[in-house]
């Protein structure tokens, strides 16, 4: 089958776009494409996260490893992550985090001297690189700059609580990484998609139902998919995407003795994506980065296929293991 092309031209239609949330349709492609995009977003879009913690003093109730783990999970603004180097293949340093190309240094120095419990939060992290800061800090400074409403949660991401006399002093190095290595580098809070449902109501059969029967049938769906037109008393589809493929309505119709009352198919070639970001990268950037990385990966495969070229670029992304 040499030379036959199965090339398709998928289309994306953006429905909703916010910094940390995005909903879009992906059409004219199949599940492999959609799933690849999802997987790359979760596991391979790089971000920056604290990876190395050097604790100078810690008299808090939580132990060093505990705090280090918590620090690692704080999402950092990683808009520059795509351009950064992985510290393991940084030429400028030995990967110990001293260089500007692959790492960002943070300092935390808090001591509680009051009788009240002191919360150590992401606000207390001092970054050496102003563009790489905890996401909640960035969001708040943005909110106060624009002079808009105050963020409801002013406290920041809590790291540990200190009592009088307790102290936490540490140096942390953030590095670029991907979600495959550790979940802290994953920019995705939620990435999911569903097949777009196609709902056909058999109007003739539907008309044989009484209004009561119609409402009970509609209520058999746990989500609000159908509705009754207040004027014509006809059943209509209000939100096909609310359908969760639970087949409750179909079962109900059968139980009512009306099989075939509704037919629901999944459109095999269109997907509705929901992307939520941790804040490390804007959700739309995440999608773009994911496509970029996917392209790089495909390039690597193609190059390897045709010219036996090195697959360095691919390995670079996949990390040590491949």
């Amino acid at each position, binding site marked *: 089958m040499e030379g036959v092309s199965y090339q398709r031209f998928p289309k994306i239609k953006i429905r909703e776009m916010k910094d940390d949330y995005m909903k879009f349709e992906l059409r004219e492609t199949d599940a492999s494409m959609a*799933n690849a995009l999802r997987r790359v977003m979760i*596991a391979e879009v790089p971000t920056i996260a604290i990876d190395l913690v050097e*604790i100078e003093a810690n008299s808090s*109730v939580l*132990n060093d490893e505990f705090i280090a783990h918590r620090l690692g999970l704080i999402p950092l603004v990683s808009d520059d992550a795509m351009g950064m180097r992985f510290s393991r293949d940084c030429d400028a340093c030995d990967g110990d985090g001293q260089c500007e190309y692959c790492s960002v240094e943070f300092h935390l120095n808090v001591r509680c001297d009051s009788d009240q419990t002191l919360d150590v939060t992401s606000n207390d992290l001092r970054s050496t690189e102003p563009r790489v800061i905890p996401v909640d800090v960035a969001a708040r400074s943005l909110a106060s700059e624009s002079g808009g409403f105050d963020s409801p949660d002013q406290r920041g991401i809590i790291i540990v609580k200190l009592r009088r006399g307790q102290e936490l002093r540490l140096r942390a190095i953030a590095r670029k990484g991907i979600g495959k290595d550790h*979940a802290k580098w994953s920019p995705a809070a939620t990435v*999911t998609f569903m097949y777009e449902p196609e709902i056909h109501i058999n109007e003739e059969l539907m008309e044989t139902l009484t209004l009561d029967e119609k409402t009970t049938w509609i209520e058999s769906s*746990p989500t609000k998919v159908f509705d009754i037109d207040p004027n014509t008393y006809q059943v209509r589809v209000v939100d096909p995407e609310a359908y*969760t493929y639970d087949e409750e309505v179909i079962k109900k119709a059968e139980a009512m003795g009306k099989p075939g009352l509704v037919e629901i198919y999944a459109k095999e070639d269109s997907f509705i994506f929901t992307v*939520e970001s941790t804040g490390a990268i804007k959700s739309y950037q995440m999608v773009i980065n994911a496509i970029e990385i996917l392209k790089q990966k495909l390039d690597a495969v193609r190059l390897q296929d045709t010219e036996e070229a090195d697959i360095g670029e691919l390995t670079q992304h996949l990390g040590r293991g491949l």
Partner: protein
Amino acid sequence: MGYREKHSVETHNNHAKPIKSAVDKFALLPEFLKVRGLVKQHIDSFNYFINNDIKKIMKTNDRIVCPQDPSLYLRYTKISIGKPLEYVEHATEELNPQLCRLSDRTYASPIKVDIEYTRPNQTNKEYKKDLVIGRMPIMLRSSKCVLSGKDEAELAKLGECPLDPGGYFIIKGNEKVILIQEQLSKNRIIIDTDSKGRVNASVTSSTHETKTKTVFFMDKDKIYLQLNQFSKPISIMIIMKAMGMENDQEVVQMLGRDPKYGFLLFPSMQECRSEKIITQKQALEYLQGKLANLSSLRFEINKDDRVKKILINVFLAHVPQAKDGNFRPKCIYTAVMLRRMMDAVLNVETFDDKDYVGNKRLELSGQLVALLFEDLFKTMNSQVASRMEKAYDKASRSTPLDFIHYMRSDTITNGLERAISTGNWDLKRFKMNRKGVSQVLSRLAFIATLGYMTRVSPQFEKTRKVSGPRALQPSQWGMLCPCDTPEGEGCGLTKNLALMTHVTTDEEEGPLIKWCRKLGVVDVEDLSGEELHAPDSFLVMLNGLILGKHTKPQKFANAMRKLRRKSVIGEFVSIFVHERQRCVYVASDGGRVCRPLVIADKGVSRIKEYHMKELRDGVRSFDDFVREGLIEYLDVNEENNALIALYEHEIHKDGHDEDNADGQKSFITHIEIEPFTILGVVAGLIPYPHHNQSPRNTYQCAMGKQAMGNIAYNQLSRADTLLYLLVYPQRPLLTTRTIELVGYDKLGAGQNATVAVMSYSGYDIEDAIVMNKSSLDRGFGRCIALKKQIVVKETYSNETSDRIVRPQNEPRKQALDADGIAAPGQIVRRHDILVNKQSPRNKRDRITNPMALKDCDYAPSNVSYKGPEGETTVVDRVMLYSDKDNKMCVKFIIRHVRRPEIGDKFSSRHGQKGVIGTIVQQEDFPFSERGICPDLIMNPHGFPSRMTIGKMIELLGSKAAVLSGRFHYGSAFGEPSGHADKVEDISRTLVEHGFNYSGKDLLYSGISGKPLQAYIFMGPIYYQKLKHMVLDKMHARASGPRMTLTRQPTEGRARDGGLRLGEMERDCLIAYGASMLIYERLMLSSDPYQVQVCSQCGLLGYYNHKLKTSWCSMCKSGDNMSSLKLPYACKLLFQELQSMNVVPRLKLTEY
């Protein structure tokens, strides 16, 4: 505590089915636990010992008399126990539990006595107050403990956890629990059959002075008495005659008019007659001949007296003599015993059941410590007396005799300390020799600690292969937990108390007797033998003694109960009318199990809504309920006189059949407070246990004690040898009332994991689970292991001591601080040095100035970290303290943080354990269109055979809890009373939030992106991480250490041992014919050894390296030597045989 809001929610939730007029009595439970608590039985019994029993013990042994001079005596006048403190070098130091735990001391108080004593040649008595005779370990939270009556803030100041139940002791820094001991009732008649199938009646008499066992048995229609003091069984009639009942007719009359009893006694009478025994004198003479000459040589007293003494002190020892010294009470008691026995012969149903809980007594720590103390007190007194005796002869003017000089406080101190710390109760007096009475309190999980406090250890040794005592007894209902028992040898024998069980302590009999008399109990002394069993009357027994008889037993019982409800007599006194035995049993002895029940009048609860409102408003306490006769405690026996309804509204339920319902209703005397209280603390953690197959609940009870989580609020300042903590423990989404009552919601041991029940890869067979790697990255199942290592700075006999010095820049000393001790926060690996210690080279010879030793006089004796290889651990804490010998000690707590790995064990709360089979990337995990991705995947094959429906309901309920933001409940049997959410309601909640009612979701494959064929049952389940982790278990070796004796590889992981190719494996290889493999495994890889054998004599010779020849030292020649390979163990065997004069000769042939 917040029960109230939940109630409002619940009532709101249960709008579908209103509960008719029933008063929700749940609020009583927290109140009950406030007054009685989970370990109240321990604390009560110890308090009773400290405040009352100890005084009685002192009073019975209050005099020490010098054997030579009776005018020289010492008398105790008062005994008391002070505050916990310790005398350190002539200063006192107040103790608190946490201090004792950390510095390995005993939490004990001085026992102080006031004494008066005489001195020779002095007329006036000497008095001394507050003389310390020893130190008594103090039970935590008992009345003498510094923690009693303290609130949360005060406890925090003392470094104590407010949720810690107390009830244990701290001996040399170790927490020790004295387990509840189960025993057969003392002083009660038990009718049973012995191993030969003979009917026997036995009584174990127990008084303060002695403990004896009297057995009557029936052999070939004749009734005999068996007593250790007599060499042979004695016919019962002879005993009767010896006690002065010379007239046979009198005996028969005492048994009752009915001729059937007389017939049964007739063969015995005949036997007595054939022995020609008619008078008391003859009987006594006969008995003299039957005396077992155990100690007859020692006591050269009148033999006649001895028989009488035995009859008084040994035979039915608990029955007192009559005032004029005759045996009438014992005769009556014997008659009653005989009658009961004959009843059993005539009617099999009247046998007593030894496994019946009412025939059992629980011995608590107070009683056990009292036994021990009494023994030690007597020992001390006799020691004082013997010292006095010795000193009396040597006494001179310059050293006057003085009792004070001979009082040593270490007998009692050491005796108590030793017994509690080893658990060996060795009492010479009672010939008691029990092991394992006290055990180390397990601090593995908070629940394990609580579980220990309610554990009842069995009376039988565990090896007995009988099923009777192991079976679940109906009388255990509400008293002992039906679920919580171990698997294996202790199954059914080791039990646990239920939530509301109380164990009684002894109570004064005096007032009780007075009340009984007032209510018309006729004294037996005043009755003729015939009247004893008159058909219209019932006998009244008080604590196993015959008090008298009453003609209207029911009326008498009701009157007594009324007195109890009015708090005229103690709340724990039990009044039980036994119709068949025609007896009224009144019991006030200690060790009976009982539980509170709501009193109902003809099925109508005495507790009304306004009572509960007063309780909620805090103006009424649980004790008020008891005092006002709304609630009473029933013990197992009295429960037989009650008809107990589960719910008040249940009584009303069958309303359509009015007459019948009313008829039934009128018989109901009590109502349960809450049905779920039949379970214990540990089983109370299980949600919906009543939907599970019962063994699953039992499994969970065992596993809940191995779950990691939080141990106590002070867990990070404790110094246990091994402690496992969870990094992010959670409170279960699906809770039970018990969880809230015991504080498991504050000290959880698990996490709510989103579980998908589906098959995934092949790594989930046999209960393995598939884990989501991202969940692990985010902290799921992460745990901290804390280990302890102690270093002692030794001092030596020549007054030199070790020293800890500043380290030079040496290898493996990077963790050390300038003071020579590893610093907290330092990373240590195996063999890293923790303390840079040096010991003096000369430890024995006297040195003039120990302080002036030079550096060269010290040799390094560094202490290194003894952890496993390859583990990177951190010094968590370093504690310096001085131990009891005033040596400086350093305690290191070393921390290791672990994330779950393949092979770590997890379990849900339904006895479903499994190990991690594989860890999978999140992107490969299935996901729902809402973006929900499970934390772990469980194979559905876990369900059909286990039938843990409770787990499914937990999943549904937790899912609803997450969606609605309200914790859901799953208390046992809780659906009717609203303490468990119904599946119907849960499904409704799920549907309200757009989920399928059955808890199933459509999932997409994370690998292909296609929807999965089936809907997946998915939701949160509370998962526990169990202490078994691969890291502590994995082991492999190529070559390694060998045993010195046999030169074979060592055994066991701890010694880096080899893996044994055992007999069965060897058999396989033989069958297969892999001879070379066997040779390699058993010889080459084990202990090959080259030997020189003399083919002449067949014995082993040796190789002379100088002459380069082999030599047989037997034949004195080196001519016929041949060299061959043997296992070293074989050579060793030959040599050992030779040493025993057995000559093993090898016959060699050419091969």
